[in-house]
Structure formats: C-alpha cells, structure tokens
C-alpha cells in the first residue's frame, strides 16, 4: 500500500546560491516520508546533505537530488534533467533522484528557478532546451570540482589528479578513494576561483550515447507512482463538480435540500470563481485561467459525492453560446468565413493576384477540421487545503508556477502563501497549462476550509469542459508554373477564437512559393480553446499537406518526388533529407493491389518561419480500404530532423506516441455541438484507437537528422504529418479526396 504523505509545514531554508561562492548545509531532518525519492513532493534538504545550488543537492549516502522545474507528463523531462547532471557530475545513475522544484521557493528567492527560461520555466515542454541544459551542466560541473577540491585538500594532492567516477573521488597514484557523501562537509567550505566550463559535446559519454528509460517507470509498474488523482491526505474529503454545460453560461439555481441528506454528503456549494486578477505577474496572462461557474457536492468519499451530484437539480443560464444550435451551423459559419475576402493579413509576398492572371493551371479546395478534446487518461482533478495561514495545492499541472499564481489569486492570498505540490500527470497534451482547473479546485476548497478537498471532474465533465483544439477551415487556391510547382498561393483561414495559422503562415511553404496572400478571420464562437499538441499546427499540417498532394496530382507528379522538388528550394536541407530517408525506408512506390495506396506528409513544428529551426517530420503511410469502406493502416514510417538528439529511445517513444495521437485525431476525433453544449462525453462517443487499430510496429528512421546544432521538440511534430499521409494514401488507394476530419465519418466504399 502507498505510504500516506504528510503535509510538511517546513519551508526551504536558503541563504545564498552556490554560484556566488557561499553554500549552506541542509538544516533539517524533517521531510515527507515518501516511498521513493522521486515521488514529487516539496521537501526540506535531508540531514547532513549539501545543497550545491537550489538545482542540486547531495546527501551523505551519495544520493544526488536533482531539482526539476518541469512537471512530468510522460515525455521524460525529469529523466533528461538527470541525464544532464549525470554527464558532468561523475555520479552513478541509480543514485540520482529527481524531485520537483518548489514554486514557493522560486517566488521567495527572486526566481531562482524561473529566471532560466522565463514564462515556460515551470512548463513540461521541451526537456532539451539550451538554457535548461546549460544550467544543469554548469551546476553539476561546479559540484564535481568542489568535491574534487575537498578530496584534494584532505589527501594533500592536486585536484587535477583526482577523478570523479560512479559517485567516488579517486586519486589513482595513491590508490585512495572516497565516496561523494564523505566529502560533503569539506566541499561546503571550498571556494572556487573560477567556475568550471561544462564539457564540450565531443567529450560527452552519456548524452547522445546512452538511452536511459524514464526514471519513474519502476513506480508506474507497481502502482506506486502518485498522480494527482492518487493524492491521499489526512482528513481529506472529495468533491464532484459540474460546470455550466454551455461554455460561458452561468449558474442560476439549484435545490440542495435532498442531496444534503444523502449518505456521506457534507456540503453542496455554488462554484463561482473570481475574475482573474490581470495585474498579477504570472508566467502567462491570468486571463487564461478563467474558469466557469458550476456546482460541487462535497462528501466523505468520491462515489458519495458523485451520486449526490447526479441527483442534484441545477438550472443554468446558457448565455450567448446557446445560439449555436448545431455542428452544421458552426461548420457553415467557418466555411462561409473562408469564402469572404480581406481579414487579417498573415503573410503577403510578391504579387499573388497577378500570378493567377492568364494561368489556367489552378488548384482550389476547401478544408475543415473540428474541435478536438485532449482526453488525457487522467481526468481533470486537483486537491487543495485552504487555511487562514496558507494554501496547499496538490495538482497534476503542466505548469506548476502558473498553478501557484492561480491558486493565490483564487484564494485571495499572496503567492508566498501558496505551496504547490506537483504529482505525476496522467497526460497533458496542452490541457493543464493555464490553470483554469486549479482555479476551480481552489474555488471549491475555499468553501470547505481546514480540510483538504480533492475535486474530481468525471470523464464526461472533463470532456465537456475542455479547452479544445479550435475548429478551423481553410480555402486554398494555387496556380502552378510550367514545372508543375506552385507559383502563386491565395489562402484564407477561419476558426473559432484561439485558432492559429501556425503550420501555414510560418512554414517552409511560405519560402518556396514566390507570390502569396494568406488572410485569416476569427468566427465568434463561444467554445473554449487552448493548446493541443502543437497549437494550430496539426490542423494546418493536415490542410496544407493535403493541398500540396492535390497540387502534385494536378501536375501529374509522384507526390513524394513533387515535395522533394518543392522543398528543395527551401534552405533547410532537413526537409528533403527526411523525405528521401522515409522514401527509402518505407519502400515508397512499390506496386500495390487495388484498394491499397501510399501517401506522404511532411511538416515542421516550431520553425516560426525560419530555416534550421523546429522539428521536421516526414511520414509515409500505406493503407488498405476494403470495398465496403473499412480502412486499415498497414504501415507507417517516419523520418525526422530535430537537428540533433540526446536520447535516441526517448525520441523514438515520442515519435511513436505522437504519430498514434495524430492518427487518432485524424481518424476518430470530433466534438459536436447541440444547443451550445458539447455532445460527446466519454470514450463510447469520442472513440480512441486501440492496440488492434494501429500497425504492429511504427518505423522510426534516424537518417533525416542534419546535425544542425539544435535539439528541438519531438512530441508535437509527428502529430501533424501522419494525418495528411493517411488521407493522401486513401486518395491513392480509392481516388477519394478527404478534405475534412475525422475520416471515420466518411463513406469510403468503392468498386
């Protein structure tokens, strides 16, 4: 059984930073009794330990505590932080214990953690960002040199003659050695004349060479990893929550009398969160954390709270969102907006109108992608304990610093009174960044002060109260030159609030067509949106890469060869390299029986209009469509260019997962709207691919890497290229062009 974590009342005691030369010894033996050091709780420094920097602390038993700012959502950020330290410190891998860095300490100590990366410091984003890497490696190199000097002083030898290996300090000439833990008290007094420079990449022995698996997996396989949902605290109560079913609606009334008498029910409360305080200096604008109105039933156990909530009669005021009666009405508004002219200019190059004059080789099409829900396996939840002195929050956040500010704002206390305990996160995909879920949790818990309140959204509530990928549409029109490649492009994008043209107006396509006009228009829909595994990018990648395929077919060219010619004009060689690699490894173009087809898609997430930036992914799909319209994905191959990589298997995992995520998005996902409400609630109506539905293996190929000096993100990029690859393969197989997702709603019968 899990150890019950205690609420610690001790804060960190910090006097100075190691990099200025002054050091402190850990002061307290008090901490949280955890079953493993990598359980994610704030804790004080262990007795006798030495904190070399707020980022790094070594214990007398040689345990190396690595403070990690980024929540672990399954992408391996925690493991990568450990890998940076491993490279420089000379410790042993199994002695490294990551723990989440306190946001409270960060606030009190002028941003000791958050200064490194600004507003995304506490965000579970890219683990390999340069400044994050640099910080860990400098800190670890500094600690290593201090330990060596401590041993040198004790033995009366030169520190250059001492090696740090596997957690030991070794003087080979005299055959003496000691453990790191034995050198701590002397190391605390060491003054370095110069801080050492981290190793050059050519000297690395761990980064890029080894592929450690995620450090938390041993806790996952026996059920002891603590996710937000698993937080258990003394005197904890549970709340089931329901928010206004039409986003932006208001709570009108509810009749709590009967529910209050139900077994275990302690309270029935209205949830009316504060308007966000825009003047707070939070990492993202506080307005992003706005949360809806609703009701919550608080009980001794969750099932009692849930049963009570289901029995509660609530009246809502739907507000303006109620006028959107159907999905058809929403889609029509989006498509109509693409047919208008003008709007917000997103990209203007050359003379697009002029390029079309006298050119009869025109390709024109309109595309559409729907609202999609993140559907992380861990439903939304969080726990808060509000007392007069302080607010403690245990929350599966993707941004614990943002969550801390939101908790302070909603509880009406100064941020220094908030203690944010970051557990593991059962999937994020962008849903848990801005803290609107934290706001709801605190809005409930503050009405039941003195006891920790664990607030749980049901799966249905999680689905219907999302911050979705925005629905969008695109009308694209190109004219082709005599070589078949586009010479002019006129495109108009539309979408609900929050949609973006990332993946369209900032991609390589803008650099390979001389005459371009891209405009956009926002349609004032009420549905709430947010980042979803590459905001904007995955929708635009689908539309752009389907359109390019249509251009290739209009030009009578092989679609993959066409892209090599087209993107060969772009200075970033990674595009062509990925296409050539995936062509070779997939067996592209081999003759196929009727009803089967090859398709390709290539896209880049993160380039922001620049060459040698972001991550490029090319995906080839081989599909089969039966005569009665059943689609089967036979084969998927991927080549990618992140520049360089740190951990080959971590990259492979993310490419597999991101591809399956993108495949699900394309084949299955659509939220529909009735009377302003989201219709789908659970996996019976919002289906997910399962083991049987995906190819038995996904070919991940490394030959697209350019060795450009960057280590770009890998989670989002594959979610963009797989959808168009599959759609284009379906066209090759049966001649039907799919211009909207999800494909499961299309009739694919043929013959």
């Amino acid at each position, binding site marked *: 059984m899990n150890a019950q974590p205690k609420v610690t009342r001790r804060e960190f005691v910090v006097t100075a930073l190691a990099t200025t030369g002054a050091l402190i010894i850990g002061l307290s033996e008090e901490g949280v009794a955890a079953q493993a050091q990598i359980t994610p709780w704030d804790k004080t420094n262990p007795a006798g330990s030495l904190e070399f920097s707020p980022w790094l602390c070594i214990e007398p038993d040689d345990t190396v505590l690595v403070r990690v700012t980024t929540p672990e959502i399954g992408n391996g950020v925690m493991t990568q932080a450990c890998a940076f330290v491993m490279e420089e410190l000379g410790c042993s891998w199994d002695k490294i214990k990551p723990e989440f860095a306190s946001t409270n300490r960060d606030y009190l100590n002028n941003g000791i953690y958050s200064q490194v990366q600004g507003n995304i410091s506490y965000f579970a984003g890219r683990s390999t960002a340069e400044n994050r890497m640099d910080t860990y490696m400098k800190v670890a190199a500094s600690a290593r040199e201090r330990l060596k000097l401590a041993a040198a002083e004790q033995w009366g030898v030169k520190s250059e003659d001492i090696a740090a290996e596997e957690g030991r300090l070794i003087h080979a000439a005299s055959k003496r050695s000691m453990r790191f833990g034995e050198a701590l008290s002397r190391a605390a007094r060491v003054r370095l004349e110069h801080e050492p420079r981290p190793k050059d990449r050519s000297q690395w022995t761990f980064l890029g060479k080894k592929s450690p698996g995620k450090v938390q997996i041993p806790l996952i396989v026996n059920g002891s990893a603590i996710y937000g949902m698993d937080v258990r605290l003394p005197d904890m109560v549970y709340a089931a929550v329901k928010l206004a079913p039409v986003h932006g609606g208001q709570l009108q009334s509810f009749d709590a009398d009967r529910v209050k008498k139900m077994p275990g029910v302690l309270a029935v409360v209205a949830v009316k969160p504060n308007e966000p305080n825009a003047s707070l200096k939070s990492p993202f604008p506080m307005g992003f954390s706005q949360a809806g109105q609703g009701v919550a039933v608080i009980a001794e156990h*969750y099932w009692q709270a849930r049963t009570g909530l289901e029995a509660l009669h609530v009246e809502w005021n739907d507000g303006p969102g109620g006028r959107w009666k159907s999905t058809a009405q929403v889609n029509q508004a989006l498509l109509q907006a693409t047919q208008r002219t003008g709007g917000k200019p997103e990209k203007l190059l050359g003379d697009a109108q002029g390029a079309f004059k006298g050119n009869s080789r025109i390709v024109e099409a309109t595309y559409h992608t729907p609202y999609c829900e993140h559907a992380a396996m861990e439903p939304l939840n969080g726990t808060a304990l509000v007392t007069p002195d302080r607010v403690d929050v245990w929350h599966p956040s993707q941004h614990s610093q943002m969550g801390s500010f939101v908790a302070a704002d909603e509880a009406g206390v100064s941020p220094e009174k908030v203690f944010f305990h970051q557990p593991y996160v059962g999937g994020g995909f962008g849903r848990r960044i801005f803290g609107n879920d934290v706001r709801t949790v605190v809005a409930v818990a503050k009405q039941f002060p003195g006891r920790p309140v664990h607030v749980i959204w049901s799966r249905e509530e999680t689905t219907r109260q999302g911050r979705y990928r925005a629905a969008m549409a695109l009308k694209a029109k190109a004219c082709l030159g005599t070589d078949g490649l586009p010479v002019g492009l006129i495109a108009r994008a539309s979408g609900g609030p929050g949609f973006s043209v990332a993946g369209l107006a900032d991609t390589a396509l803008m650099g390979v067509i001389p005459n371009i006009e891209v405009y956009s228009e926002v349609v004032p829909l009420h549905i709430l949106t947010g980042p979803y595994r590459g905001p904007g990018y995955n929708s635009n990648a689908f539309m752009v890469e389907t359109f390019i395929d249509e251009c290739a077919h209009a030009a009578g060219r092989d679609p993959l060869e066409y892209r090599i010619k087209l993107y060969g004009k772009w200075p970033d060689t990674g595009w062509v390299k990925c296409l050539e690699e995936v062509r070779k490894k997939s067996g592209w173009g081999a003759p196929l029986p009727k009803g089967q087809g090859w398709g390709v898609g290539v896209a880049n997430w993160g380039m922001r209009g620049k060459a040698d930036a972001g991550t490029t992914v090319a995906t080839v799909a081989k599909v089969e469509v039966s005569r009665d319209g059943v689609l089967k994905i036979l084969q998927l191959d991927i080549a990618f260019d992140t520049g360089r990589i740190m951990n080959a298997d971590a990259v492979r995992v993310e490419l597999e997962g991101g591809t399956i995520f993108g495949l699900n998005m394309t084949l299955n996902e659509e939220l529909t709207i009735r009377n302003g409400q989201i219709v789908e609630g659970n996996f019976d109506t919002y289906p997910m691919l399962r083991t049987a539905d995906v190819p038995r293996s996904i070919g991940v190929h490394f030959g697209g890497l350019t060795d450009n000096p960057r280590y770009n993100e890998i989670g989002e990029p594959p979610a963009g290229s797989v959808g168009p690859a599959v759609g284009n393969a379906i066209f090759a197989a049966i001649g039907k062009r799919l211009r909207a997702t999800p494909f499961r709603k299309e009739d694919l019968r043929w013959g």
Partner: protein
Amino acid sequence: MSVFLEINGTAHQVEADPSTPLLWVLRDYIGLTGTKYGCGIAQCGACTVHIEGHPIRSCQYPLSSAAGQKITTIEGLSPDSTHPLQKIWVDMNVPQCGYCQSGMLMAAAALLKQKPKPTDEDIDRYVNNICRCGTYPRVRAAIHRAARLTNEESQS
C-alpha cells in the same frame, strides 16, 4: 453495509454502500490507488483488476458482487515488481505518462496466464485498453517478450 474482501492476500472489512463500484472502494476506502479511474463505463480498462484470476473492469463491478472474492490489484501483481511483465515494462521503456499502465499490465498478466504464448490477435482482443499516449506497439512487443522469457525459463 459491511463487506468482506480479500485483496492481494489481505483481509479487509469495508463499510460502504453495496452499489459502490469496486474501483472506488479500492481507491478511497482501502487506499490502493494503483487502480485508476479513466472513464467509469468499462471502456478504457485503466481500472482492470483480477477477481479469482480473471480480469474485470472494476469501475462497473459493484462492491456487493466482489464480496468474499479474491481480488488482485497492480500492487499485488508481484510482491517486489518481479513479474516478467513488470521487469520488461521497465526494460523496454513502455509507459509514457503511465496512468493507463496498471490496467494494461493487469490485462496482459491475465492474458499470459491463460495463453502463455499469445498471438497478435490474442493481444488485440484481450489487451484492448485505451492509452492516449500511444504505447500500443511497445505494449505488444513487451507482451511477446515476456511470453518468450517465461517459456524459456520454464523449459530450462
């Protein structure tokens, strides 16, 4: 109502409404949080446990039906994380966020018990849990590897 349960070899007496799903009894009354809530409608399989050795989705299994039965949760799959699947899961870096993996492991363990050499079709059919991170290819490969390892060990 007071109900007797045997969970991972330990006797428990639970005071709860008999209609309470076993999932929430395990999580909130017993404190075994390894069994996860994902959907509540027996779709995703994150809540899979074994009852008398058979895999069931505990979110749709009322406490009254579990009375007196032998229940195994992820915490009881092995005493020290040495079930072949647990070892290979670590070795092959299978989980991503990990939230669904207790259920995956319990479904896979039940399959191996019944079919020590499962085919791909067996895995498709019996390990049909939902994983949003997309660990499916690794789950499949890991089950096959665990089966090979177990069969080799039993022959030697």
